């Protein structure tokens, strides 16, 4: 599988577009900063959120049982899926048993992870993503490029063209208001015709046996209060123990995600719609294995706010697709190789380890330290090219012997300046493609310090 760097290079090469993408996301980061600043207890909230998640994960099985009990009392039907295939089969069975052929979905990264849409479509079910951004990428037959802003990689002109073709909007029209209105009309029809609604879960509460879904558009509310059947899909890590924990996470989530104080709708489901049914599918799909890995289990605390993507200087200049996984950016660079180290071996290296992600993360996942640690796993698993591993071994040998180091340094500084430029800056020198090499001075620092010392002594 081609690595992140190869996919990032063409994105970065279109500098104008890359800058536009960078600015759009940086703008969201600034909005986040303003919201975070307005809360004096922000850092305390992050600390608490992190500790609540750590605690919950440490007793997750007990809390899931408590949740199941209380949810059942709320007339919610609880299903369990070990993996993506089982998840998809459960959802399909619920729909098929009721003869449902039209499903509306609100955003759920889990169903993206499980590739639910193609699974259902292949079985004759019409699936409509109703979040505007998700609908846009669905019409383009693309995955989302960002978990909160699925169409952030597209310009309004791209969307205008798409809607002209798919929804019959005026040719050349690209005003966001106009396009959104067209989508509203189009999706209202879908909502009115839907027989079931599927949502993700932002938080589920063990103590109350219910769950919370956050949207700005109201699509989850439309999709779950018109049809009689509501299916909600969640990874087990979405659970929190108490309803008061919701306050901690809801204060952090929208502020971190989009720089809003809260989403327009924060909907609490504790039972089915009048005369209807409510199903919840609890999914593992590799998560329990991650729970067993001490170095990486904190990645399960993620509340999918996307802040680490918005702040990541690499993501902003390489785009979501360069990661090749449902969840891109710093958190995706952990989750993808945790699931499939062979195909995503390059992702832990797709970071300058600047640490901005760790500082922005509302649940304080030590993202850049985990990426650093993951690199060692990749080397141990021989997933890093041999040439690179050998180069490092050679370098280590030289650096470990002071004489060899001094000799090699002296030779390099003596020889490189005398070499023809074409030889130094050949295609084998990626440093020198857009940059000059550092100067090759005559003396090393130790030489200068020695001289300083002897001159002082002489004086």
């Amino acid at each position, binding site marked *: 599988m081609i690595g992140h760097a190869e996919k990032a290079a063409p994105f970065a090469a279109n500098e104008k577009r890359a800058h536009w993408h960078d600015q759009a996301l940086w703008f969201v980061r600034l909005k986040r900063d303003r919201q975070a600043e307005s809360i004096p*207890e922000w850092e305390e*909230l992050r600390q*608490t959120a992190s*500790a*609540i998640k750590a*605690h*919950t*994960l*440490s*007793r*997750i*099985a007990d809390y*899931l*049982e408590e949740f199941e009990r209380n949810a059942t009392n709320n007339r919610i039907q609880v299903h*369990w899926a*070990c993996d993506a295939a089982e998840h998809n089969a459960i959802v399909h069975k619920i729909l098929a048993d009721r003869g449902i052929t039209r499903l509306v979905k609100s955003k759920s990264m889990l169903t993206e992870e499980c590739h639910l849409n193609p699974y259902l479509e292949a079985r004759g079910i019409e699936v409509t993503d109703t*979040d*505007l951004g998700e609908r*846009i990428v669905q019409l383009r037959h693309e995955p989302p490029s960002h978990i909160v*802003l*699925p*169409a*952030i990689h*597209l310009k*309004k002109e791209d*969307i205008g063209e798409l809607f002209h073709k798919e929804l019959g909007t005026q040719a050349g029209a690209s005003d966001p208001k106009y396009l*959104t209105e067209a989508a509203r009309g189009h999706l*209202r029809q879908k*909502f009115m015709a839907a027989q079931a609604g599927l949502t993700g879960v932002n938080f589920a509460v063990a103590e*109350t046996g219910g769950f919370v879904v956050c949207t*700005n*558009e*109201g699509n989850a*509310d*439309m999709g779950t*209060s*018109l049809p009689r059947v509501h299916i909600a899909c969640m990874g087990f890590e979405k659970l929190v123990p108490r309803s*008061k*924990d919701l*306050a*901690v996470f*809801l*204060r952090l989530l929208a502020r971190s995600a989009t720089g*809003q*104080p*809260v*989403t*327009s*709708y*924060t*909907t*609490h489901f*504790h*039972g089915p*719609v009048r005369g209807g049914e409510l199903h919840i599918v*609890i999914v*593992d799909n590799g998560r*329990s*294995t991650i*729970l067993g890995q001490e170095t990486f289990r904190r990645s399960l605390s993620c509340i999918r706010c996307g802040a680490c993507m918005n702040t990541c200087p690499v993501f902003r200049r390489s785009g979501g697709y360069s990661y090749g996984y449902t969840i891109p950016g710093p958190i995706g660079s952990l989750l993808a190789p945790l699931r499939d180290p062979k195909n995503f071996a390059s992702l832990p290296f797709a970071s300058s380890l600047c640490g901005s992600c760790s500082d922005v993360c509302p649940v304080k996942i030590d993202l850049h330290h985990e990426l650093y640690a993951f690199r060692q796993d990749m080397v141990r698993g021989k997933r890093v090219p041999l040439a690179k591993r050998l180069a490092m071994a050679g370098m280590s040998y030289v650096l470990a012997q002071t004489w060899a180091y001094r000799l090699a340094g002296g030779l390099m500084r003596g020889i490189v300046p005398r070499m023809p430029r074409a030889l130094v800056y050949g295609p084998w020198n990626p440093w020198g493609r857009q940059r000059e090499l550092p100067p090759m001075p005559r003396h090393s620092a130790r030489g200068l310090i020695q001289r300083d010392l002897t001159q002082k002594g002489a004086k």
Partner: protein
Amino acid sequence: MSSRDSILAALRRNAPATSPLPEPPAGIVYPDPAKQFAEAFTSVGGKFVRLARREDIDPELEKIEAYAHARKIASLVAGIGRSNVDLNGLKDPHELEGLDVAIIAGEFGVAENGAVWVPGSALGPQRAIFVVTQHLVLVVPASELVHTMHQAYERIRFQGLGFGVFISGPSKTADIEQALVIGAHGARSCTLFLVG
């Protein structure tokens, strides 16, 4: 073994040592929560109106253009608004389509973010009303404001609740080039009367 049991067994096997469950921090206390609420609610695209008395609501409603021209109005607040839709007569939530204005009572407001708690019981027979309506009006007593979400969750009783939603302004999206557009799927406008 069922999937349920094998998942739970794996989670028990792999769980780390228990760490303590902390209490949420004490939240910010605003000197003037009504002012903070008004600012927050306005910042999320809502229209905030402060009224001294309940009797002031009806004349104030007429000033809302969407209301003045509305054909179908449903009020779930006793004695308020020119309600002309019999919600109990609807057989199906789909019949709400075409509703111009819904007037709903919020239980309390949250100053930090302009959110209004609306329990399912305030939504009448069809909970879809708050999102299907083209325009939404919320009525909240001025005495019912809390500072933060921490206080909010101390108030909410989930026992027998079924459904409840925090509403903070109208429906919106910024999915096209981060340009904010009000009126995505739900209400195109959200007016709030803080009364008393």
